[in-house]
């Protein structure tokens, strides 16, 4: 009960901080929209590409790559913005599990919002028929959930190791590649409108990876955060 309480308060603090500056949210949103726009213009430079059969395929893969980089940028900040003295303050008032949990939940919320907005922006520029829109939407939500859980823990590790962006990329990409492969497969199935029962296995793998990542971060973060 204490853990839930602490997590809730820290979570509210995260939202309040973000609400005041709106820096992470607006920054990443602008990043996503401008990337989508650049892709749109670049695709139109090649005449005839839009009608070709590979167009939807590129559409799908590109969406996930844009989301991948957007989420790295958004979540890498989650531990960098904390000063040393503030971390010390948290140390005295809350348990480490509450801190990592609140950050993870906050990042899930942020990423879900961002990916829904990104999907909307995407649908404006790239007119495409989704075979199973609801399932595609679900895969996007699952994607933002998985990105958040993985990147939150990795950003905690990277922030302890000198806060550089390269390290964040090196550490997180091997972990995120299997996730993104499953996601691309899942969303491709949804795009083609393939029967949903074929995708249950993929969803199961995603949940399993998330469960593993959340458990290991809950177990390991207490060791990580104290200097």
């Amino acid at each position: 009960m204490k853990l839930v309480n602490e997590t809730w308060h820290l979570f509210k603090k995260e939202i309040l901080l973000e609400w005041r500056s709106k820096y992470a949210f607006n920054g990443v949103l602008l990043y996503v929209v401008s990337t989508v726009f650049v892709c749109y213009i670049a695709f139109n430079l090649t005449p005839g590409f839009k009608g070709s059969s590979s167009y939807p395929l590129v559409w799908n893969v590109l969406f996930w790559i844009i989301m991948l980089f957007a989420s790295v940028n958004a979540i890498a900040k989650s531990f960098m913005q904390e000063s040393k003295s503030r971390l010390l303050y948290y140390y005295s008032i809350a348990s480490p599990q509450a801190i990592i949990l609140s950050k993870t939940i906050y990042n899930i919320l942020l990423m879900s919002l961002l990916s829904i907005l990104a999907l909307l922006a995407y649908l404006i520029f790239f007119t495409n028929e989704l075979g199973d829109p609801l399932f595609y939407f679900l895969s996007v939500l699952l994607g933002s959930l998985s990105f958040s859980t993985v990147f939150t823990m990795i950003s905690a590790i990277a922030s302890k190791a000198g806060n550089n962006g390269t390290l964040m990329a090196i550490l997180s990409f091997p972990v995120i590649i299997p996730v993104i492969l499953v996601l691309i497969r899942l969303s491709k199935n949804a795009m083609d409108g393939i029967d949903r029962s074929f995708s249950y296995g993929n969803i199961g793998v995603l949940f399993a990876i998330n469960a593993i990542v959340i458990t290991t971060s809950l177990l390991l973060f207490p060791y990580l955060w104290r200097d």
Partner: protein
Amino acid sequence: MTRSIMIMKLLTFAPSINMKFIYQSWWKVLTVIVIFYTLIAGMLIGVPKLPIVHETIRNTYFHVPMWMAMFTVFTISVFYSIKYLNTGKEEYDLIAVECANTGLFFFVLGLVTGMLWAKYTWGEFWSNDPKQNSAAIAFLLYCAYSVLRNSIDEEQKRAKISAIYNIFAFPVMIVLIMILPRMTDSLHPGNGGNPAFGKLDLDNRMRMVLYPAFIAWSFMGIWIASVRYRIRLIEYKKNEN
């Protein structure tokens, strides 16, 4: 007399004392003998005749044990990373890092033996097979581990953070190598209905070579890691004084 009693005691308690174990030589001799046995028997003893693979099935004796050795040393590495986090003893960190390095070495060997075999049965060294791709990604994972280690100067901090990443990476590696390739169609034996360790494909003649090879190469990995650890330990003690 007292010395022989001491040796007897060491022998009986060897596995439980663990650290004494790596200074003994009986298991190293055994390892070498068994490895030579698998090399010779693997080439000479008959194998079941299977379509496509034919005689290349003998690669099983050399390819799969590499992964077994890799799993063994990576598991030991994670075990000592956990122990390091609990106790903070520098030696445990040294064991963890040297086991991870040895694991990387066997990783490369496993990939190379697999690629050579793939050239003769699949036609390409690299044929975009899910199992190969997953293995390559898992390789990146452990390369990231060594990059992370090099990026931190402070010794205790380096030990702690890399131990945490090591524990974090291990389940992901298991998912990558053991679970994901089984989800999709793969050319690799054992996946997508291809022949492998199933009861029908592997006869007793092969088991007689394969299982000793698993154990022997795993101990080979432990041996290499222990030698590297002992060198590290000497360097560490030298720097301390």
